[in-house]
């Protein structure tokens, strides 16, 4: 493998039902920065059916070029056709870097692509950078050991250098409709026999809660100290006054009090709201991993030794069951 043959930063532009996923735009923002550091291009790979009109959105988000593969087999994600399409692009285009969103789709696709192309894949990176020395090394940093350690990973001798990145970690650029880019119709030759090995019987969308806590500007989050549904009702009331959403620690999801899509943390969602109010959350390292990037953190907890206070900007040692309703009333009174 001649490493100098490989260039440019490629992004897998995940779409579902023809809608570009937010994580793809976030990755384009980061790819732009990486490509600029190496004076390279940002190329988006867009797979689907009748999706060519979405290319403009990717260019506005930072892509210089969009490779569109329009095919019946690519309408809904399936491991094999997606792996094969990306593999053929890798073989022909020789990307230096390939970024994939760490969604249930990306985490199924990424390892399959890496194994087919015999290259390394860093899982769920939280920081990507080009070293500012002469080597211009691509460094991928990720949490390991349940979020207790950070590890910086290199993929020195194999290409592309692949990484998945969790949604909500990178920042997308403001959309710039005046940006110019190239849109290429890309053809892939599929092995139909191999592709038909997995069949989709049905895809079911469950409207659990419409809100995505990762997109919320204000989160009122509850842990074990909140106790039960009644406790969470107090948090709901406060969130409503603040114009925010309610999220939860893992403990309350495991206890069945809160749904899984409201969970913040290593095994839940990564959030970085303007305000994160941690109520009755002790602050296990796995929880902190999912919220410590929040701009302003207020913690309310009875236990003054709770680890959550180590990341809080404002810590209140006290009873959330008293403070939260009083705060809600106070905010209500202020609005009048």
């Amino acid at each position: 493998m001649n490493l100098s043959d490989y260039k440019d930063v490629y992004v897998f532009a995940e779409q579902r039902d023809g809608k570009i996923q937010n994580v793809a735009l976030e990755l384009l923002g980061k790819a732009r920065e990486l490509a600029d550091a190496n004076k390279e291009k940002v190329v988006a790979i867009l797979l689907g059916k009748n999706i060519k009109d979405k290319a403009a959105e990717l260019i506005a988000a930072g892509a210089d070029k969009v490779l569109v593969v329009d095919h019946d087999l690519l309408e809904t994600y399936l491991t094999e056709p997606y792996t094969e399409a990306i593999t053929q692009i890798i073989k022909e285009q020789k990307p230096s870097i390939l970024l994939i969103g760490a969604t249930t789709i990306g985490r199924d696709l990424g390892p399959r692509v890496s194994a087919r192309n015999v290259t390394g894949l860093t899982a769920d990176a939280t920081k990507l950078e080009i070293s500012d020395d002469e080597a211009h090394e691509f460094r991928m940093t990720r949490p390991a050991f349940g979020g207790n350690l950070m590890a910086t990973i290199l993929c020195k001798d194999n290409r592309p250098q692949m990484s998945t990145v969790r949604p909500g970690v990178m920042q997308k650029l403001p959309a710039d409709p005046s940006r110019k880019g190239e849109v290429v119709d890309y053809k892939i030759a599929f092995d139909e026999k191999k592709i038909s090995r997995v069949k989709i019987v049905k895809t079911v969308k469950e409207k659990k809660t419409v809100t995505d806590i990762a997109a919320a500007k204000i989160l009122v989050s509850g842990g074990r100290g909140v106790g039960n549904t009644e406790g969470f009702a107090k948090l709901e009331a406060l969130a409503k006054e603040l114009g925010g959403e309610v999220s939860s620690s893992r403990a309350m999801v495991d206890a069945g009090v809160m749904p899984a899509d409201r969970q913040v943390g290593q095994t839940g969602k990564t959030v970085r709201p303007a305000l994160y109010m941690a109520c009755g959350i002790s602050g296990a390292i796995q929880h902190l991993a999912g919220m410590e990037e929040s701009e302003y953190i207020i913690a309310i907890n009875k236990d003054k030794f709770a680890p959550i206070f180590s990341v809080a900007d404002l810590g209140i040692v006290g009873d959330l069951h008293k403070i939260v309703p009083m705060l809600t009333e106070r905010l209500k009174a202020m609005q009048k």
Partner: protein
Amino acid sequence: MNIVVCIKQVPDTTEVKINPVTGTLIREGVPSIMNPDDKGGLEFALQLKDQYGAHVTVITMGLPQAEAILREALAMGVDRAILLTDRKLGGADTLATSSALAGALRTMDFDLVITGRQAIDGDTAQVGPQIAEHLDLPQVSYMEDLKYDEKTKTFTIRKQMEDGYQILEMQAPCVVTALASAVKPRYMTVSGIVTAWDKEVEVWGADRINVPDDRIGKAGSPTSVFKAFPKQLKPAGETFELTPEESVELIINKLKEKHII
């Protein structure tokens, strides 16, 4: 039906504590456990054994002490346990790990391979799909449930998605990666524990798997760790012990100061 379940021994990362002074990990006294997603996958296999009389094998790649989770699996009811252990396999990243496990699987007869979705010490979710790729088999990851049709040798799998789920079908032989949250693993039985110690744990070295040396261990790993460091927590702010009334005033003032309200 023959099922092979790939399992891993991991430190219980929920028990890991940080030394507040040095910011380093306190590794002492952290128990080793069977990785939760793998244990979920094992339970799915044992349910297929209950229903269809499937023969269930567990395999783990690791240090000799990983035998403990194989004994646990035997006590839960599996038929055969294999420990793949060799210095040559050390220092492996996910690609080299999956190459070694795929090599072992190639020597075995199976209809279904089950792995956990991801291990709690690495959280990569890569080894299952990579095994499937090395073996050129179809895969479904994030499995929440599966059903089997004996006549057509077809598995019907429910796959978890962020916004719902998918029902997928594939024929044996194939690979699935299982979610711990989808199933409650059975406990070891007393008789299971007793007989687990009478059963043999097969110990395999790298010579058993017929994979070139440059595809396993450190040599077969495209990725390397440049550096590892404890997570830097941002400096703590101020913590106050006040009356509820004073606390509310303080919060209101801070929210105003930060232009949140």
